[in-house]
């Protein structure tokens, strides 16, 4: 907890109304999307400028107070969570788009700009910001960069990292750094920009970002395909990407689909059930694109990898089909899902899923396991739903045991225990599944350089 003196000091650094200590704000801004922690920050502050952020950091180093950077709080790993009297630094008020350069095709914006705001801004300029996911209406650019967010277009456009042309950051000592200045080429030694991308608020604050935009894609068509057996999925992926510019390749199970349909907002894509579905999206560059897609469908059908499928005939249908995939996360929220976000090499997906499915069915027959994910990136979201009969605590304990099994497999397959959601608090103790002891020791070394006093988001990512 902060002393009254320290609260006074915060008031002198920021306007009084931008220092919140009321219960509602402490509760709302002490948590991200994970619902496993009890928020207990000492205060939530809302800076408006880089200078204010730097002053807050200098204050925190003097007073030895821990700071938690907070963006849109849609994170899924407990990164923007304050459970031990930290001061939460929210970027809600740093949400201005500062500058647009049509020749560079870059936008300079404050870290609190919401992802959808950047997407819309780009569209208004006749351009495109391609990083997209179901939380883009709330997540912030700063949070996206701090987690190197991926999403539904990674197959084509890569992760957030690909789109960061420059950063302004405040380090854990209060230094302000300009990283890469929006340059396309800049081989002048270590690129700290890339260290801050994915650093989950543990090195410093991202206060501004220069984001790269691109030309918008041609009209997009969406297919939802019925895939009876796992092994077929990657064959379909291979066949389609050989001849089409895929912008998305997603997968979900019949169980996942049922949860979406149960909400009564969208209809089943076609009659008949299939164990697995693939949603793929491609640019319809010209009239031959659709011909190509159709002949690919035919070939995959003849090979027995596919049994049925639909093709969107309008943007409206494309959106409705996307909802079959994008609404999954929300539709299972009431079941308190225990989420794993793992990645293996694309080629290893079918054997991995098969092995894991067998383990789960054997060890946890009463748990409903919902699969979906960005399978074109080898990225699977595994959601274990809480059975009604089980209390939350008992469920969590059981899930930690499931975790051990999941992660043993991830290790065996040389995969990642967090593909795109980051590590935060939730996955911190499993870091060694993917990173070697030497790796982790060097990460600590890097953290000590930027944040020698350990005030930046302590306890997240590294114990």
């Amino acid at each position: 907890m902060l002393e009254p003196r320290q609260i006074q000091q915060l008031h002198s650094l920021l306007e009084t109304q931008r220092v919140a200590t009321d219960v509602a704000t402490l509760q709302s801004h002490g948590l991200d999307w994970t619902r496993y922690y009890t928020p207990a920050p000492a205060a939530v502050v809302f800076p408006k400028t880089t200078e204010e952020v730097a002053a807050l950091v200098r204050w925190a180093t003097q007073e030895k107070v821990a700071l938690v950077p907070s963006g849109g709080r849609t994170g899924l790993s407990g990164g923007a969570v304050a459970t031990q009297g930290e001061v939460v630094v929210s970027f809600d008020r740093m949400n201005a788009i500062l500058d647009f350069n049509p020749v560079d095709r870059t936008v300079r914006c404050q870290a609190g700009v919401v992802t959808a705001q950047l997407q819309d801004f780009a569209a208004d300029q006749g351009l495109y910001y391609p990083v997209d996911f179901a939380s883009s209406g709330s997540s912030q650019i700063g949070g996206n960069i701090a987690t190197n967010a991926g999403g539904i277009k990674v197959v084509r456009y890569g992760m957030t990292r690909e789109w960061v042309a420059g950063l302004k950051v405040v380090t854990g000592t209060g230094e302000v750094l300009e990283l890469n200045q929006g340059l396309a080429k800049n081989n002048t030694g270590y690129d700290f920009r890339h260290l801050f991308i994915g650093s989950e608020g543990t090195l410093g604050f991202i206060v501004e970002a220069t984001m790269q935009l691109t030309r918008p894609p041609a009209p997009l068509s969406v297919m939802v395909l019925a895939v009876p057996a796992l092994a077929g999925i990657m064959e379909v992926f291979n066949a389609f990407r050989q001849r089409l510019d895929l912008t998305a390749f997603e997968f979900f199970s019949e169980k996942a689909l049922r949860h979406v349909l149960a909400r009564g907002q969208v209809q089943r894509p076609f009659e008949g059930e299939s164990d697995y579905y693939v949603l793929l999206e491609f640019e319809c560059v010209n009239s031959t694109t659709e011909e190509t897609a159709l002949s690919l469908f035919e070939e995959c059908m003849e090979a027995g990898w596919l049994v049925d499928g639909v093709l969107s005939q309008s943007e409206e249908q494309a959106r409705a089909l996307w909802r079959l995939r994008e609404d999954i996360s929300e539709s299972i929220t009431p079941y308190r899902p225990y989420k794993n976000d793992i990645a293996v090499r694309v080629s290893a997906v079918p054997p991995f899923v098969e092995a894991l499915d067998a383990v789960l069915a054997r060890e946890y027959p009463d748990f409903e396991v919902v699969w979906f994910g960005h399978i074109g990136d080898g990225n699977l979201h595994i959601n274990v739903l809480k059975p009604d009969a089980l209390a939350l605590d008992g469920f969590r304990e059981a899930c930690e045991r499931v975790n051990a099994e999941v992660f043993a497999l991830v290790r065996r397959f040389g995969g990642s225990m967090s593909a795109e959601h980051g590590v935060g608090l939730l996955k911190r103790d499993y870091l060694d599944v993917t990173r070697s002891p030497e790796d982790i020791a060097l990460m600590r070394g890097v953290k000590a350089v930027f944040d020698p006093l350990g005030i930046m988001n302590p306890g997240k990512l590294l114990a």
Partner: protein
Amino acid sequence: MKVLVAVKRVVDYNVKVRVKADGSDVDIANVKMSMNPFDEIAVEEAVRLKEAGKATEIVAVSMGVKQCEETLRTALAMGADRAILVETDAELQPLAVAKLLKEVVAKEQPQLVIVGKQAIDDDSNQTGQMLSALLGWAQGTFASKVDLADASVDVTREVDGGLETVKLKLPAVVTTDLRLNEPRYVKLPNIMAAKKKPLDKTTPADLGVDVTPRLKTLKVAEPAKRSAGVKVASAAELVAKLKNEAKVL
């Protein structure tokens, strides 16, 4: 019973259209085009009538440029049996479309014509009514339910006060409203099968219809930009603003 449905190729509902620099029209170059959503509903209704054993044949008709073939292929993939394209690069206004449809009806002799209540590009809401007048047939507009019998059709219409059901003697014209049905997705195998279904072409000249526009567009303008919201400090201030500035109280 033969059913005729009209389908129009329009700028996709989700496209944010831009006005051409000279204000003559909206710019449709490189813009996603789709079937008019109300026509999708018309096709769906016809297919359901066929699936229920009430319709025997569905003929889809489109009027316009060559690319309308794509729209017709969609209708065929949804379940229409045959398609007719009345091909022309001319601008088509509702009266011309109604006249063309009248000629197609004369050739095809359907008992029921289903069209959308409006097309989402020009929002005219005229074609169905004009067609029924030209044919001298009964009309049931804004249908939210269609009950087809041998010699008549009951059409439930969405009107201001609620629902109204009218009984029309066949042959008749029905226009579709949003709640009539939820169109199905188009299955890929059906898209392939649709390529083999017949698509005949004709022209306004062949049908003996003069499609010269009767109306002239003077100017197309962007809608006024919405001004940003303001925060008020109190209920009193809100009421004052609603009274004095918005003038809604």
